[in-house]
């Protein structure tokens, strides 16, 4: 066992876990944050994507010791983070995914939405190519991606609108 000090979704947590456990296992089986999915467990699928200091990384290939002192955001923290920034309800990306029907089984969705969040933070008006590129590490076996790309575009528009309203 090893003790870790982690910062997950804004909460500072001290947690002990077997030394060979990955961050993914700590999130799911110690912290109960099962929104982060365990797909391939070897870096191929992106279902375990979390944001580490704002950038998408794969929890199945991270040892918790490597992310001590860094800010981890999981899908459970996405809406609260949006509200912390002064927003209402869910993150615009979540709203747009809902409206665009950008999911079928939903297994890929937490990872896809976090990759999309990182993209829109860096590039508020991404081209379709940038969207496809940023989501290229997230496999979806159901949708064919079209609705996902549409949803990210719609979320970018929604955020631009919210910003202009905020500026009024």
């Amino acid at each position, binding site marked *: 066992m*090893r003790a870790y000090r982690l910062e997950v979704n804004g909460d500072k947590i001290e947690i002990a876990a077997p*030394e060979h456990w*990955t961050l993914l296992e700590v999130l799911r089986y110690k912290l109960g944050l099962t929104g982060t999915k365990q797909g391939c*467990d*070897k*870096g*191929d699928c*992106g279902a375990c*994507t979390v944001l*580490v200091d704002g*950038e*998408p*990384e*794969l929890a*199945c*290939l*991270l*040892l918790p*010791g*490597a992310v001590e002192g860094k800010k981890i955001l999981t899908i459970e923290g996405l809406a609260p983070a949006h509200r912390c920034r002064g927003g209402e309800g869910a993150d615009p990306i979540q709203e747009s995914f809902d409206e665009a029907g950008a999911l079928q089984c939903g297994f890929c969705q937490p990872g896809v939405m976090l*990759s999309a969040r990182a993209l829109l933070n860096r590039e508020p008006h991404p081209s379709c190519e940038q969207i496809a*590129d*940023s989501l*290229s*590490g*997230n*496999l979806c076996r159901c949708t064919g991606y079209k609705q996902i790309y549409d949803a990210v575009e719609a979320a970018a528009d929604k955020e631009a609108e919210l910003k202009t309203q905020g500026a009024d």
Partner: protein
Amino acid sequence: MEYPTTVEDAVALLAKHGDRAMFLAGGTDLLPNMKHGLFEPEVVIGLGAIEDMKGIRKDKDGSLHIGAMTSLTEVARSQLITEAAPALAQAASVVAGPQIRNMGTLGGNVMLDTRCQWYNQSHFWRKSLGYCLKKDGTVCHVIEGGKKCVAAASNDTAPALMTLAAELHFLSPSGEVALPIEELWKADGTWNKNVGPDALLVSVHLPALSGPHGGAYLKLRERNAIDFPQLGIAARLGFAEDGSIFEAAVAATALGPRPILLQSTTKLLAGTTPGESNFEEALLELCAKAHKQLSPLANIPGDETYRKRMVPIFLKRALVLAAQP
């Protein structure tokens, strides 16, 4: 898990634990290999807390210094690298997918283990087959009766760094070594490097190039993301004032155990000028030569006959791109 904060401590820790320990950079190859039972370290020495190993800078003599712990994303986006070493930036930008490029490092990519369809499998899978030479077994499933593993070098940045004549700075218990990257490799898939596993790659140096240069890296793969290369070709051309070529380098990966620097490329291309017929002729000759010399093996995804046919095609495309500095 150990997290040293200096390169000296990292090397001393590895020496202390010997064969039982391995370095962990981004972990994007180490962890899958550990999960498959291919690597079985009892101690993992994380390099993430060594600040000296991160970042890119230009030295006074114009050479570039890249810390081994610099992420592939940073290498791909760095203006210093896209300008001075476009092939390296391109190679880093096509490794795996975005998440892995955020985690994976240049050092880890250079030091990447070789790959083979009979090796990169779960323990259960390999056990059912009776293992192989590279790990736990006595036979090779690729070369019948083979006594030497031929698993493929599959790191995208290696050929790009070879065309740039990169120098690798290692620290090991016996001291510091600066090794031209071309001398790093040996044709043994079990361990394809001429340094031991106790050597820490500290940084990568790209010497300053005289005059304008163009470079490109092209990668053959099934999907445009995530997949390892089925063939990777890097090219670099140096130009004289009159626009003619005075220097050329071509290197390829995903063929056999070591990435290969094609010989006498400068001899063939020097003096020719892109856009003129002498360049086209030299290009055809070089492509024919590469097609003869470079033979992919049947141990990674992608039909080997198809991969061989793509050698001259990718080489031509890479050189045409490199000809537009």
